[in-house]
C-alpha cells in the first residue's frame, strides 16, 4: 500500500435522522484500485455510509463533505454521482416487473464510464459494439446462461441469488470507478458467492475501487483494507489481516457500552 491515490475522501461526515446521529464525524479515505471493507455490528452505520455516498433519498442532509476524484459530490444527485463513476449494489436488489434482464443491462451500460475504456478493453463500449455482446458478456461473468436469462423479467420469479447476480452483471457492464456493495453475500448460495468473489477480483484487476459493506468474516477476507464502524463512528482501520481480530474480539476497539453484536460471524 505504498502511496495509494485517494479516490474518495469523507471529511467530518455527519448524518442525523429523526434526532439520531447515524454517522458521526466520519473521516476516511478510500484508495483507488483497492478493495475496502466496512465492517461493524448491526446499527453501526455501514449501510447508512453506503447510501450516503450514493446520495439516496433520506441520506442527503449531511454535514461535512464527500470528495470523489477531487470533486465535492455532496450536493450532486444520484444520477450525477453515477455518471462520475460511483454505483451501489443494494443489499436486496430491486424487482422490476416487466423489465427484462437485457433491458436492465442495456440501461446500466448506457452511461458506462468512459474513463475505464482503455483499462477494460475486454468489455466493448455500448455505443460502438453491439448490445448482444455486452449482455452476453455481463451474464457469463456472473455465471448465468444468456440464452436462458436475457428475456426473463427481473421480477419475483427470479430467486434472490439470481437477482443478486443480475445486479452484479448490471454493474459490470456499467464499468464504474467505485463500486459499493452492501452485504454482497446476503441471501445467496455458495455458487453465487464464488461469482461475486470473481467479479470483485476482476474489478480490482481492471483498476476499479470496491467498498464491501459487510459483517461477514468471509467477505472481509476479500478486502485489502478495512474500516470498523460502531455507532456511526470510525473506531479502527487497517489492513484486512489486522482487522480480522474484530470478529474474534467482538468489537474490542470500540468503547460502546452493551452487548457486542451477536450476529457477527
Amino acid at each position, binding site marked *: 500500500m505504498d502511496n495509494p491515490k485517494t479516490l474518495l475522501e469523507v471529511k467530518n461526515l455527519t448524518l442525523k435522522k429523526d434526532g439520531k446521529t447515524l454517522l458521526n464525524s466520519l473521516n476516511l479515505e478510500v484508495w483507488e484500485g483497492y478493495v475496502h471493507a466496512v465492517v461493524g455490528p448491526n446499527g453501526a452505520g455501514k449501510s447508512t455510509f453506503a447510501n450516503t455516498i450514493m446520495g439516496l433519498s433520506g441520506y442527503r442532509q449531511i454535514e461535512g463533505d464527500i470528495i470523489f476524484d477531487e470533486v465535492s459530490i455532496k450536493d450532486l444527485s444520484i444520477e450525477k454521482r453515477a455518471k462520475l463513476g460511483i454505483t451501489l449494489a443494494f443489499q436486496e436488489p430491486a424487482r422490476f416487473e416487466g423489465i427484462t434482464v437485457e433491458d436492465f443491462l442495456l440501461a*446500466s451500460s448506457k452511461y458506462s464510464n468512459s474513463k475505464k475504456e482503455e483499462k477494460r478493453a475486454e468489455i466493448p463500449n455500448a455505443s460502438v459494439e453491439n448490445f448482444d455482446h455486452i449482455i452476453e458478456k455481463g451474464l457469463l461473468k456472473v455465471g448465468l446462461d444468456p440464452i436462458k436469462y436475457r428475456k426473463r423479467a427481473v421480477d419475483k420469479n427470479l430467486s434472490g441469488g439470481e437477482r443478486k447476480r443480475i445486479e452484479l452483471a448490471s454493474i459490470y457492464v456499467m464499468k464504474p470507478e467505485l463500486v459499493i456493495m452492501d452485504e454482497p453475500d446476503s441471501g445467496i448460495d455458495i455458487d453465487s458467492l464464488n461469482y461475486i468473489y470473481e467479479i470483485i477480483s476482476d474489478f480490482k484487476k481492471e483498476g476499479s475501487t470496491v467498498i464491501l459493506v459487510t459483517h461477514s468474516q468471509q467477505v472481509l477476507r476479500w478486502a485489502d483494507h478495512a474500516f470498523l464502524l460502531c455507532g456511526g463512528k470510525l473506531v479502527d482501520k487497517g489492513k484486512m489481516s489486522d482487522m480480522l481480530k474484530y470478529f474474534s474480539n467482538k468489537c474490542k476497539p470500540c468503547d460502546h457500552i452493551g452487548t457486542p453484536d451477536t450476529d457477527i460471524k
Partner: protein
Amino acid sequence: MEKNNDLELIKQLLDSAELHDLSDKIAHVEIHGNKVLGLHLVDGLLINSKSLDDGVDINITVEKGVKLENPVRFCFGLIPPDGVQKLKINTILKEDAEATFIAVCTFPNAKNIQHIMDANITLEKNAKLTYFERHIHGPHGGVTIVPKTKVIVKENSSYISEFELIKGDAGSIDLQYNADVYKDGSVYMTARIYGKSYDKIKILESAHLIEENSAGVLISHLAVKDNSNAMVENEIVADAPYCKGHVDCKEIIQGNAKAVAIPKVSVNDPKAQVTHEAAIGSVDSKQLETLMSRGLSEDEAVDLIVSGLLK
C-alpha cells in the same frame, strides 16, 4: 380519381399503423371511417361487410377445423382530425378453428374523433382465438374510444386478448369487455394503457366462469401521469367446481393523475378458486434509485419502469 384517393388513404393508414409487407398469404382488412378500402382473404376465412352511415358492419367467420397459418391483420382508423367510426363486428370461430387477429386502430391526426366498437365473439367447441388490439393516437388527445366486446367461450375453447394504448394521447377510453366461459374454456384478457395529459380511462372487464373447470385471468396495467385519471374495475364470477380465476389491477400514478382500482371476485362454488391483486402507487423508489445509480436520469428511469409495467 376515387380509387386513387382510396389507395392514398390505405397507404396513410398502413403507414401510421406501421403495417408493411402484407404478402398474399396474410389476410388483411383496411377500413377508413365507414368504408372498407382493402380486403384480402385466405382459405377458411370469410368476411362480409356493409357500410353504414358512420361506420361498418362486419361479419367474420373462421370455418370449422381451419387453423389460420398467419395472423389476420385489421387496420381501422381515420386520417382526418374529425369524424366518427362505428364498427359492429360479429366474429365466429367454428368448432376446432384457430386464428390470431391483430387489429391496429390508428387516428394519427385526431382532434375530435369517436371510435365506437360493438363486438360479439363466439368461439365454438375447441376453438382458439388470440386477439391483439393496438391503438395509435396522435398527440392531441382528441379521441373518444368506446370498445364493447362480448365473448362467448364454449367448451374447451380459448380466448386471449391484449388491448394496448401506449403511443400518443389516449383521450377518453371507456372499455368494456365481458366473457362467458363454459366447460374447460378459458379467457386471458390484458389491457395496457398509458394515460397522459387530461386522458380519462375507464376499464370494466368481467369473466363469468359458468361451467366446470373454466378459467379466467383479467389483467389491467396502467400508468397515468399529468392530469389524467383512470378507473379499473375487473370482476370474475365463478359458479362451478374447479373454476380458476385471477384478477390483477396495477397502476402507476405520477404528477396530478388519479387512479382507482377495484378487483371484484365472486365465488359461488366451494371447489372454485379465484384470487386477486391490486396495487396503485407512485414509481417505486428502490427501482428508481437503482436505475439512477446506473446513471439514468429520473425521467429515463421512470420511462423504463413504466414501460416494464405496460409490457
